[in-house]
């Protein structure tokens, strides 16, 4: 089973950093933690090359290392999660483009290609070396050859000034998509935990004994605290990481500062560079993409898409805003429950809450709310913002979401909302949220009365399961058809059933049911439990109870998807090999940049065909990653990639 994953990771690393690194990575994945000389001997490559390979892997954060003491040799281990995340690049770029605009998408794409990047280098690359877009495809392709040193990120014409780049980076840092690379970024999760525990024991438990429930609780608390401290030490903070020439920022206030929204606006490319750009980021700041946050974002997109399928576009847009508002308050995919909380509390109470006003802030102005809420929106429309893709930039200060009254209506014409209009808007938003709440899938929930926090929650636990089932259903539907899907849903809803019962519930002929069940059993999707009626256990007299095991279907489909992904990537190599000569020619220094003149017509065509093929295959990898994300990552409880 693990073979599929290893194949996939090898293919991913190979296509990203070349086959030297890939073989080193596979060796590490196979043998576990190794020192450099052992690694070289296992991988059967010279030590010098191993060093080069490890360096490029480290640059991409595809390996973890740990050096126990001073002077002791560093030990390397494969970062499986990081390697898998190479497949998610395309989706991350899509997410960022959708939320923060085209230019931000490009920046993130470049950072992803580099693994991590110094802000200064990024700025330099953007300002000094304007190269055409076309070229970038080739240079990124070039990076796959052995031991090749990465070219500088290929900039795009539409980032025009350093301040624009800084704005984008700042927006991304604030939204958590980019994070600062701290000193502990290369330590694997388990080592990180061990270090924390070791430190806590050294500092607070001098007798080195953590026994007994009281002490254990104390220990766990201290570990949590230290973990949080270390994490926040490494996190980006405005106080540290801005260039000092900017205005003085008070730490901790950056997120709610009133001028922050204005900055957010400028972060999006709406054509103009703005005058009062914020302080510049320090050139020495090194940033990377935080995949946990991105997966959170992708999860939101998925949920929003599901809402769209069931309730339409407008309601889905409102839901998207709610998801984003909640996302800002979430740090991990898995809902962490604080053990210190009372046990009789509803676990959902721990979920973050967003009130209607927050939702309104994230909602793009110009979404016509009246369309979906039906009768709720029969009043006049909320005036539309002037821009197409601008965020709402007025913060409604004096409106409490639970005291919306229709007074003081002064219709304005300058694009700003009157009090009445904003109250109307809030009402409409709530109507949409109630639609979502009322749906069978319970997309969100209003907080129970009786607790101080009022607002909307998203019951992620159930929704993730719904997403998972939806993904499995889509697969079954496409591969086997509607009838098998119906039977599987019946088994999922009703539990174990005999075929006669299935036939009568599904309103089908028992003969047909038998055929379908046999097919499904062959595909390992359903199975039958044998229950003997008599002591003789004659097979003909046994009762067969059919059941559908979601866990099993999930892991089967996941393995299947890994394999499909690996093959798709391998196919990319095969295709590349077929056009090798032409690609090599196009990469010659004298031709590069002047392909139009120096290549023959047939060669140009072949090159274009190859690019299309590559694009198609890689896009498909991105789609397969969508499946993996649902099956494995969204619940946040999967540990198969932890190292």
């Amino acid at each position, binding site marked *: 089973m693990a073979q599929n994953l290893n194949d996939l990771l090898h293919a991913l690393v190979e296509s990203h950093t070349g086959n030297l690194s890939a073989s080193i990575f596979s060796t590490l994945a196979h043998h576990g933690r190794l020192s450099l000389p052992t690694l070289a001997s296992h991988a059967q490559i010279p030590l010098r090359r191993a060093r080069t390979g490890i360096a490029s892997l480290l640059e991409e954060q595809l390996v973890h290392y740990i050096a126990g003491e001073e002077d002791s040799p560093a030990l390397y281990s494969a970062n499986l999660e990081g390697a898998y995340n190479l497949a998610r690049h395309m989706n991350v770029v899509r997410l960022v483009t959708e939320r923060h605009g085209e230019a931000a998408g490009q920046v993130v794409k470049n950072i992803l290609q580099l693994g991590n990047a110094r802000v200064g280098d990024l700025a330099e690359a953007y300002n000094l070396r304007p190269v055409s877009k076309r070229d970038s495809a080739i240079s990124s392709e070039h990076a796959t050859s052995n031991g090749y040193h990465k070219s500088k990120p290929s900039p795009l014409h539409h980032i025009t000034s350093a301040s624009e780049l800084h704005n984008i980076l700042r927006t991304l840092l604030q939204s958590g998509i980019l994070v600062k690379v701290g000193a502990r970024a290369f330590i694997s999760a388990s080592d990180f935990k061990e270090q924390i525990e070791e430190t806590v024991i050294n500092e607070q438990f001098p007798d080195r004994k953590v026994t007994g429930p009281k002490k254990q609780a104390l220990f766990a608390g201290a570990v949590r605290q230290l973990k949080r401290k270390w994490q926040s030490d490494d996190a980006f903070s405005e106080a540290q990481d801005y260039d000092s020439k900017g205005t003085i920022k008070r730490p901790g206030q950056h997120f709610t500062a009133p001028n922050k929204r204005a900055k957010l606006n400028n972060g999006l490319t709406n054509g103009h560079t703005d005058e009062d750009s914020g302080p510049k980021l320090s050139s020495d700041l090194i940033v990377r993409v935080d995949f946990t946050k991105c997966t959170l974002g992708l999860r939101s997109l998925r949920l*929003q898409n599901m809402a*769209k*399928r*069931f*309730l*339409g*576009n*407008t309601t*889905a847009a409102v839901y998207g805003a709610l998801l984003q508002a909640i996302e800002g308050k979430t740090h991990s995919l898995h809902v962490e429950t604080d053990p210190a909380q009372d046990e009789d509390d509803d676990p959902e109470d721990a979920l973050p809450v967003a009130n209607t006003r927050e939702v309104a802030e994230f909602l793009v*102005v*110009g979404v*016509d709310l*009246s*369309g*979906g809420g*039906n*009768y*709720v929106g029969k009043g*006049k*429309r909320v005036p539309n*913002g002037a821009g*197409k*893709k601008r965020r709402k930039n007025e913060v409604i200060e004096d409106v409490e979401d639970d005291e919306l009254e229709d007074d003081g209506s002064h219709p304005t014409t300058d694009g700003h909302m009157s009090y009445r209009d904003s109250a109307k808007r809030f009402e409409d938003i709530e*109507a949409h949220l*109630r*639609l979502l709440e*009322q749906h*069978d899938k319970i997309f969100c929930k209003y907080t129970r009365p009786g607790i101080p926090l009022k607002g909307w929650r998203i019951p992620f636990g159930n929704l993730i399961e719904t997403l998972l089932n*939806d993904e499995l*259903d*889509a*697969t079954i539907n*496409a*591969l086997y058809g*509607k009838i098998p*899907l*119906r039977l599987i*849903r*019946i088994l999922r*809803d009703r539990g174990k059933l005999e075929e006669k019962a299935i036939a009568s*519930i*599904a*309103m089908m*002929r028992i003969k047909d049911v038998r055929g379908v069940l046999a097919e499904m059993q062959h595909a390992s999707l359903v199975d039958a439990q044998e229950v003997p009626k008599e002591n003789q256990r004659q097979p003909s007299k046994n009762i067969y109870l059919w059941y559908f095991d979601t866990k099993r279907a999930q892991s089967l*489909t996941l393995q299947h*998807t890994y*394999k*499909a992904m690996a*093959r798709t990537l*391998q196919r990319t*190599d*095969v295709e590349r090999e077929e056009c090798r000569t032409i690609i090599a020619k196009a990469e010659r220094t004298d031709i590069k940049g002047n392909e139009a003149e120096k290549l023959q017509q047939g060669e140009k065509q072949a090159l274009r065909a190859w690019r299309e*093929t590559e694009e*198609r295959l890689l896009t*498909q990898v*991105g*789609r*397969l990653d*969508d*499946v993996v994300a649902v099956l494995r990552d969204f619940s946040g409880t999967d540990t198969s990639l932890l190292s």
Partner: protein
Amino acid sequence: MPFLPKTSPESETLYTDLLAAAQASDEGLKKLFYQPDIKDLADATAKSVDMLLRFIQELVSHCLLRTSRQGGALCWSTRPRAAAENIRALATNERTLYEYVEDSHTKGIWLRELKKRSGIEEKKVERAMAKLESARLVKLIKNIRAPAQKTYMLAHLVPSDDVTGGSFFDAGDLDESLIEEVGNLIVFHVRSQSWEERKVYSKRPPRAESPIYINGHGGGGEAEVGSKRKRSPDIEDMAAPHHQKPSKHRSHRRRSSPDPEPYTLQQIPHPASPPYPYPSTETIHTWLTTTSAIRQSKAQQLTLAEIQGVIDVLVWDDKLERIAGGYRTVRGVEFRPPGFGGAVGSGGGWGGYGDGDGDDEGEGEDEGEGLGATRNGNGLTQVPCGRCPVLELCGVGGGQVNAGSCVYFREWLGREV
């Protein structure tokens, strides 16, 4: 056939009275008479229990009364004169068998059970039953629980639902087309009550696709629509999927639309509060049994449980969704207008709807674009590997099957195989 004297006038009167009493009662001929009941009816003629016994015996021997035992007490029920005539004409064996069949009433009796109970030789039983059948006294029915067994029942009785399997079985066979039709009717009915549908004339050609966030598409064109009318909705709100995947199927449908002004249907959910009265199983059942779409006699038979069964299947098929104690059609689900046999024309109210078989829905690329109905496929099922019959062998031990030699990939990438 033993010779029987004519019935005495007294017993004749008793029989007439009993028959009249039975027919007057709710149970009809099934009405059981106990000794006191008969005594009450026969007060005038039957002076004593002895006399009564004699009359009853006389009637029983003429097959006009049938003896049975109910809770330890003897009781009798009447037989119509014609039936009695027929039975009297039967041989002893046949008569015994007939009585067993009669006892089983609407449940029917299995041939083997008959043989066992009567203790008559197997061959003879079979011969006798064949004779009874040809005399149209009994009939062979199909029990859905045991379709292979020969089950007999009196010819004039209607088998119970237990035996036939209910309204959705036709002569022991599942009536799939009826189920489909009833399901289709339910979808039609529920849909008409679950979404506010607006026909919207859109000025934009239906090809325009916009990313999720730009559904505000500027003020421009919409501003002219007028302040009273609501904005025309985003194209993706449309129930009609026809702009998504132009297939042969669809383009044909579009061509058949004479309407030059493209319109689209928008489905808008009803507001959440106060709870909109979505149709419940009860109201759906009431509607179905009163509608003229189903033949009256059939409609009367449909029980609530059967309708619930159909609704459940529709829910599993992603056609309906439960909401607030009732049901709503899943967004974008459509029904088949009767008599169209699958293909839907663009005329009428359902212009541009798919035919609901779902086969060509969401086949593809953007899952987000799909309508509520089940998503058909994802990244996995799109790649050749998702459907590969030899995936197990692929890349194993340097074998012949691998990513390089794969014919499915060649095909998928549009090369010649």
